[in-house]
């Protein structure tokens, strides 16, 4: 290879093609910017989590369980505490309604009874400051999240009724260990002294309570202590959270979020790659004659490949640098979009690794998408310098197949690397590849169809314009794929977003169930139903709930299973969780039996093992099937059961649904609470009703679904905003491609437009021809892109979100028409030669490639 020649040629080409390369590069820069911004944010955030995890946990270790620690464990802890080896603090956490006595408003809250020296790391900041210590020392004080004051329309100094007790709000919490995010919108935190929890009367048998023990100790001592007690923790179903596992959990959830957002960025990058491929293809076509001359003068194919490959690399590196620079701005802007979703505070900083990733992506994507067309240059026969039309029959080359394979593999690798999980990555890559293949197929099909079209009687410009779509050197395929793909992505994102928001709007409608009441005790059910009826909020559905644990499955005791170190994550979760069992004797509307059979309506035959019905996914996690035996610990009573059937449950419908259902006879007498849903259309009446329920039944919890949906909607809006901002990058990339495609089309058609003018066609006719081609291409790209988008959105909405699909037809038509108009405008904008004389323009066009 002649390096000197390659460098000199690349430098000269760069000099004269700078603007075009800039245009191609900007196709990619936007996608790179999105990815660099997200990667930078993730790196900064993971570092912040590492730095702050101990302060966020507030201790070196947290032990959590649904029941208080056993006496033996407590005694050991107490002994260690006394010796000063392992100082501990405790928090009792549960959900309950809070009633503001002054405003009469109620709200579901996250109550935390605290004691001891919590937190051991970091500190709790209050407003006014310095109220944390006094809280623990007083019996009737409460500190709350400031959002609760707003929701209950009260202030500091007001009184909050929690169950049977009254607490005075002494201030608000501005910072405390633990992450909050949007949860405060649904259930704001109320901190009270732990010694006052019992007096509220809110903790009853079957109540959902978390008992946390926080421990501070040097890592080595902690490790030894944990190891020696791990077995007893496992069998007591105590969850262990160390600083390291907390870091991992926080990091994992945020990484998943940024990875999903990253897929949107990847879409923009893939689109940019298609744009680069389309642009470079035209560029290469224009260079064929020049390369033939170079070849006849003695340049080897390697020299040519090196010169133009270097040019492509410069393009890629340029796009990488520009994209990274823009990515730094994206990184700085993202926290303001998804700030509520971030677990920790972060400072903006430039991430060298993210920037290096950006440049590497630029180089890689350019190599992938530009190398195919550039390989064509290496194959230009030198004889073409003597005979311009010499074009040997193209032989299928192994390099072409290898390149296509490499491209597909790379797309797969980058998708899997970026996606939250391998299956999502594979699905994403397959989806993109299918969309590209369908677009390419549609373009080829349309060209073939147009070729058969008889337009004998049509005006000359129309015939010529349509013929341009299938004549040699047409760019039907490249343009349809590039523009259609851009439109497809943008329209799909929009249609999915539209459907999800639409569904939330439906759920919030006043004719839908909007009150969920739980923890209703047996003796409270009748008076509560009467109250609801009286207030015009009839009970729509109800179900009894019995708490239980799984005592044995697949022939072994649960504690036996849990002693095994290597257990599947899902299986371990299914073994350890506390189950909310229910009972009814006929399947509900939301349940479909997929295996086995339901027991007879009158109840199962006596004497046999109790038949139960399991959610099919839970059965998968537990590795059980119909006929298998399961042993339950229903609040101290062992119950042997046999799986009678598996159910598919429609979890999306607002109805009481349960993983495990028993026949009524088996659980009717067990300690239980009731869960019910009701509806009242008027928000004020709902608020009053909630207040009265809480006053009369203090232990009962109520969720106003519209309030919860508003909180979810706020989160959704935030996510949606981030997705939409990233989609804008895709849209902008699509637009750049549109401009690049139009410019390429113009440069290709200029020469023949001028020839036509020389032969006597008016500039008006020439414009019409070029405009016809542009409009036809736009129409093809827009219709195929939008059609595919509707199909993809349908699949995502129906299969992933499992929602009914409502196509945003008007929006889609608008998008398609907008694209079409842009194509027409850009295509017709610069039609052949303008007002110049044909001779002057012809001369310029002739010197375009070689002279």
């Amino acid at each position, binding site marked *: 290879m*002649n390096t*000197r*020649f390659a460098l*000199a*040629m690349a430098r*000269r*080409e760069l*000099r*004269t*093609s700078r603007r075009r390369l800039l245009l191609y590069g900007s196709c990619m820069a936007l996608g790179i910017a999105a990815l660099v911004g997200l990667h930078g944010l993730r790196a900064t955030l993971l570092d912040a989590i590492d730095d702050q995890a101990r302060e966020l946990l507030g201790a070196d270790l947290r032990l959590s369980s649904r029941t208080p620690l056993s006496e033996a464990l407590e005694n050991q802890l107490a002994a260690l505490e006394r010796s000063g080896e392992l100082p501990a603090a405790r928090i009792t956490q549960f959900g309950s309604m809070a009633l503001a006595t002054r405003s009469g408003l109620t709200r579901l809250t996250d109550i935390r009874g605290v004691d001891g020296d919590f937190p051991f790391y970091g500190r709790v900041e209050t407003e006014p400051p310095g109220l944390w210590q006094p809280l623990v020392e007083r019996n009737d004080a409460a500190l709350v999240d400031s959002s609760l004051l707003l929701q209950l329309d009260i202030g500091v100094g007001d009184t909050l009724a929690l169950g049977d007790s009254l607490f005075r709000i002494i201030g608000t919490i501005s910072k405390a260990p633990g992450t909050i995010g949007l949860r405060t919108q649904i259930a704001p935190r109320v901190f009270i002294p732990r010694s006052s929890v019992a007096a509220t009367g809110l903790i009853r048998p079957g109540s959902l309570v978390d008992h946390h023990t926080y421990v501070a100790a040097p890592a080595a001592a902690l490790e030894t202590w944990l190891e020696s007690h791990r077995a007893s923790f496992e069998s007591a179903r105590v969850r262990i959270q160390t600083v390291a596992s907390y870091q991992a959990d926080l990091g994992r959830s945020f990484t998943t979020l940024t990875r999903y957002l990253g897929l949107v960025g990847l879409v923009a990058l893939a689109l940019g790659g298609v744009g680069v491929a389309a642009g470079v293809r035209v560029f290469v076509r224009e260079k064929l*004659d*020049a390369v033939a*001359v*170079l*070849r*006849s*003068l*003695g*340049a*080897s*194919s*390697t*020299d040519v490949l090196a010169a133009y490959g270097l040019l492509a690399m410069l393009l890629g590196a340029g796009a990488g640098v520009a994209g990274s620079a823009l990515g730094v701005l994206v990184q700085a802007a993202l926290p303001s979009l998804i700030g509520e979703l971030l677990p920790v505070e972060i400072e903006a900083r430039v991430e060298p690794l993210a920037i290096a990733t950006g440049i590497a992506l630029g180089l890689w994507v350019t190599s992938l998408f530009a190398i195919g067309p550039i390989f064509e240059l290496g194959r230009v*026969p*030198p*004889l073409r*310098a*003597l*005979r311009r039309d010499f074009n040997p*029959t193209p032989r299928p080359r192994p390099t072409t197949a290898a390149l296509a394979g490499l491209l597909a593999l790379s797309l797969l690798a980058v998708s899997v690397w970026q996606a939250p999980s391998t299956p999502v990555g594979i699905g994403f890559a397959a989806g993109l590849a299918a969309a590209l293949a369908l677009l390419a197929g549609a373009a080829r099909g349309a060209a073939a169809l147009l070729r058969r079209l008889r337009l004998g009687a049509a005006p000359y410009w129309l015939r010529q314009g349509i013929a341009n779509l299938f004549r040699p050197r047409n760019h039907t395929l490249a343009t349809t794929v590039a523009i259609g793909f851009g439109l497809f992505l943008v329209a799909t994102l929009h249609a999915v977003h539209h459907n999800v928001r639409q569904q939330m709007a439906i759920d919030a409608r006043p004719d839908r169930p909007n009150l969920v009441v739980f923890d209703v005790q047996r003796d409270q059910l009748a008076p509560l139903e009467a109250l609801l009826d009286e207030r015009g909020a009839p009970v729509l559905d109800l179900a009894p709930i019995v708490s239980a644990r799984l005592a044995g499955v697949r022939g072994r005791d649960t504690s036996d299973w849990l002693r095994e170190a290597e257990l599947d994550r899902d299986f371990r979760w299914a073994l350890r969780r506390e189950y909310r069992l229910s009972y009814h004797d006929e399947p509900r509307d939301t349940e479909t039996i997929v295996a086995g059979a339901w027991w007879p309506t009158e109840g199962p035959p006596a004497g046999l093992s109790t038949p139960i019905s399991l959610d099919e996914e839970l059965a998968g996690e537990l590795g059980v099937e119909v006929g298998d035996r399961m042993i339950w610990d229903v609040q101290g009573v062992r119950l042997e059961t046999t799986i009678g059937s598996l159910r598919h449950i429609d979890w999306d419908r607002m109805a009481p649904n349960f993983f495990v259902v028993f026949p009524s006879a088996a659980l009717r007498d067990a300690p239980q609470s009731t869960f019910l849903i009701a509806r009242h259309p008027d928000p004020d009446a709902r608020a009053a009703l909630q207040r009265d329920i809480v006053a009369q039944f203090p232990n009962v919890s109520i969720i106003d679904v519209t309030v919860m949906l508003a909180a979810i909607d706020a989160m959704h809006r935030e996510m949606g905003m981030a997705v939409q901002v990233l989609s804008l990058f895709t849209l902008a990339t699509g637009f750049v491609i549109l401009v690049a495609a139009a410019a390429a089309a113009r440069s290709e058609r200029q020469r023949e437009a001028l020839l036509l003018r020389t032969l006597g066609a008016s500039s008006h006719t020439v414009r019409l021809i070029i405009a016809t081609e542009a409009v036809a291409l736009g129409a093809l790209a827009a219709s195929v892109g939008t059609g595919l988008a509707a199909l993809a959105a349908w699949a995502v909405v129906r299969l992933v979100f499992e929602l009914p699909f409502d196509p945003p037809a008007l929006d889609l038509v608008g998008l398609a028409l907008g694209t079409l108009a842009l194509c027409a405008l850009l295509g017709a904008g610069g039609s052949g030669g303008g007002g110049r004389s044909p001779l002057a323009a012809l*001369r*310029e066009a002739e*010197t*375009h*490639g*070689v*002279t």
Partner: protein
Amino acid sequence: MILARNLTQRYPRAEGERPLTVLEGVDLEVRDGEVVAILGPSGSGKTTLLGLLAGLDQPSEGSVRLEGQCLAELNEDARAALRAECVGFVFQSFQLLSTLTALENVLVPLELLPRQRALSAAAAERRARELLERVGLAARLDHYPAQLSGGEQQRVGIARAFANEPRVLFADEPTGNLDRETGLEVAELLLDLNRELGTTLIIVTHDLVLAQRSDRVIRLEAGRVAPAETAEDAV
């Protein structure tokens, strides 16, 4: 020396049709320093013969030896290397690279020289300037092809063809795109430079004046060499 034996070139046609024979059984020997003109009507195979002699294409049958090397034994890149070292080209439609200035166009063959013959950047530029001065374009060094007239462009083409001091120069109708007067000037320049540098010159042409000034004329008719040996006979 160039030695061609039984050169035949056929191009495949549509399925079922016989291949198109463009050149058939051409034998040719060109001595070092000789000026040979190839004449013939359009479609007689002149350019095809030129392309085969220069190694731009492979014959269907027969062989070519160029500067002692059998072209059939060389792969495409080896033939390119041979061209870079000892072959020059002048084209009918000039074939200047439009994105390069006149000086840069002449520099290209110098940049493609094999390592053992490579000139330093300064020496290469000096040589390119001298050649452009020699063809009368000293004032046009930094002009792009679009800024030059047809005659000027062909002068750049001639300067480029001689840049690597080729032992063989192939010219494909070098005056074909020029008016008579400019054509004469360009032909003069080509032959002068050829004499000065002792290059073997093979010219495909319709220009009888140019043909008359060659040492020998080969006349092609329907892909075969017609029996005429001297320039006067042929013309």
